[in-house]
């Protein structure tokens, strides 16, 4: 991948939903807005997801309330607790994983067309 390809590739990801895992095991999901050579990433409308771990949950997250609590993710599906943060910048040095989220239907189309890197903007926004 030469420099132009690298830029094209990163541009193609703009405004897509990324899931970024940090080295403290939290995950941030939001719209990809900006990056630089240090891999610092700005996400907008970001949510923080914290996966329950044995050491940090303590006594509260696992204690179920009498009712089947609907609004809060609980232990059953291992859904993490989440909260809204708005716009965040994740420093490149703390990133352990970057995932791209796409609609299953869209990915199928893409593979059919064998489009890899650069796609017209309309297609992205039509998603």
């Amino acid at each position: 991948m030469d420099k132009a390809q690298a830029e094209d590739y990163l541009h193609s990801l703009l405004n897509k939903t990324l899931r970024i895992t940090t080295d403290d095991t939290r995950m941030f999901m939001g719209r990809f807005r900006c990056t630089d050579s240090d891999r610092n990433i700005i996400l907008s409308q970001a949510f923080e997801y914290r996966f329950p771990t044995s050491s940090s949950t303590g006594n509260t997250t696992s204690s179920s309330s009498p009712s089947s609590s609907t609004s809060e993710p609980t232990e059953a599906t291992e859904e993490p607790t989440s909260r809204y943060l708005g716009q965040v910048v994740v420093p490149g040095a703390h990133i352990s994983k970057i995932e791209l989220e796409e609609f299953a239907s869209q990915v199928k189309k893409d593979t059919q067309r064998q489009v890899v890197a650069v796609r017209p903007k309309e297609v992205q926004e039509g998603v």
Partner: protein
Amino acid sequence: MESNGMPAIAQQVGGLNINDGPPKPGPFVAYELEPPPPPKINNKNLITMDVTEQFTSAAQKLELGELVKDPHFTLFESVGALEIMDSKMDSGHLEEGETMQDDYDFSKALLPEEIIGIIDQLLCHEMAWHMGYPLSQTIFTSLYIDRLLMPTPTSLEETYFDRSDSRLQKEPLTLQILRAYCLGLIKTCWFVNSRVRSEHFYEEEDFVTHTFNRSLLDRVGHEAILQLLDETVELLSGSDDIPREIKDALFSRLLFRARFLRIVEVAASRTAPGVKEMWTELQSSLPQIISSTNLGKPVPDSFSVKVQRKLASTVPPRPIVIVSQEGAFAHLERLCRDAAAALDVFEYYDSHSLFTFVSLFQARKPQPSVYVRTLLQHYLFGDMIILGTMSIRQVLDEDIANFVLPASKLLDRNNDEVEVPTDPRFIAAEKMEIFRSRAAGTYLDILRTMCQNRCRIRRTLCHTIVDWDNLQLDAEDLDQQLREFTQEEPILDRNISNEPIYAFPLSSWAYFYKLRQMEWIVQMGFELELYQPDELAAMYWYVQYLSRTRLRHLERIRTFVTRSTSTSASRLKDIGTAGGLECANAQAYNNLSTLEASANSAFADALSCLYTVLDRLGLLSKLPQPYSDDHMRYEVRMKPFLGIGLPELVPFPELTQLVTQSNENTLDILEFAAESTAAAKRALEGLAKLNAEQGFCRGSHGSWVVEVKNALKACILANITIVTVRRAVEAAGDEGKVKLKAEIPGPSARYHDWWIVPKVVPVP
């Protein structure tokens, strides 16, 4: 609940309204609107691909400092981003070895003294929230409150603090007291928050309604909570293992909470009886709580700043706000007192008195808190029915009738009944309706504006002044068209003008309010300390210019009102008729306003002269203006008036000449200033003697008199100051140095906010 649909109504009223509108969330608005719900991460329509490798290698190819970004994404926007893993910015960041949760044992039994300690701390937090701090730094930092709200309970059954198996045993009394109190507290906040949100206020500036995605017990009814509070009170009275003193202290706190909750539930009602008594009762229950605060034992462990990392928040972590108990109780006491006083607004007498009431109420020191101000807004404008009983038209017509159009057939409601389009009465009714539709918003905006904080009041008045100017122009057209209906005979007086002179009642009315508003804008500048010492002479000169213009205008209105009353005198022989009363009111209001404008203009003239002299003597400090000069500053000051046709803006060179009076002798200026204070004093004394009807301050006569007397004190002090300066000038002779020092007193050191009298002291 009862406030359903209120935001929509507030929006409609907002349409009539204040230019500024609710603030739009921008990059610097820390608390945005309610966040969207978090997307579920296990969604079978979505797939994720690990792009770590590709992304990283692509990013490494970028030049140092090169950015790949969306073209619409700006640096300005990026400034608001929270930096993850930076403990100052990222509330979710854990230090090495730190845990997400506080290890707090909710099953631990607490001493009754500790319950008092926690309750009192919570009350401080509640008041801090009322003062404008966010819930995340106040009430939400309590681990007990956090426990109650997360997960969101749907019934009281889900609110036990202890959720281990041992809770199957009976809840200890102390914990039940705390739980009942906390539930009552949160529900109280729910009512307060809903009320504030339904009205016009400034998020963050006045109050933070953001709940960080937590529900304030939306799904638990307040009746159930009140019942729990009552049951707990009973249980407490039956227990005999708590010392008497402590038991009483707990009692008074539970009763207080139940009372507070009951009040906020009915406070917004414009018909519920006894609300005033409830506030008074709440206030009188406070001393008992205050006197027993020393029994409390604080439990600092039960509050934690860490709770913030579980809240939906677009701001960095912030410390817990500490408000002293004295401060909190003082705020609460004032809140009760102000809320009770706000209910007096329902005793409506006339539109002028209503304006006086609202303006004096909002000028209370310190200004009533946001919750009380939003209650008052609701009382005034809720459902677009003024005070719950009157249409806007009724208030507007009354205001016009009791000032410029007494007993006029233009305001005759029977005109509306005429259905023949060619009938002059039909046409007149139609034209009047056009006028009302244009005037109502601008007129009511004054009241609505007065319910905001002091800085916003001035700012909004500056924005809306141009509306009065436009209204005046529109009204001139309508006045002319309406003459066909009124068959008005003009005044023909060659001494005044070669043209026939007509009354122009509607535009006169608009012009009067415009002048008043212009005076307020300049005068509030004194209150808000906008002006530099070397500007005061010019600004007071402007006050007298506007007041004098108002005086002349009042004279004109009086001429026409007297004339129309005398021509229709035969109809109005009986003073008891509605028309006769209107004529009397119009005269009385004109008299009041004339007296007030004379006082204003004379006093302002005196102060302007005094400051001119002090400036001449070099006694006023002048800040350097490296990027500006007096002329530019004057333009900025007068910006709100630039678009105003009448009265004309005085050009700066002319103003400078009028203010500095360079061809006048200093002693002559002082002589004139002294005479002016004497005239102002006479006018103010006249005002102070008026009764509630004559002063158009029914319902607030007491505070009105205090206001007048404060101005009078300032006036007397000004006179003394002028004498002091004159003596010093005389003593210094022609060439000598005047041995004086002048200081500009701050707002707390003045008798009246709008009258800044310099403090002049002799120096050796």
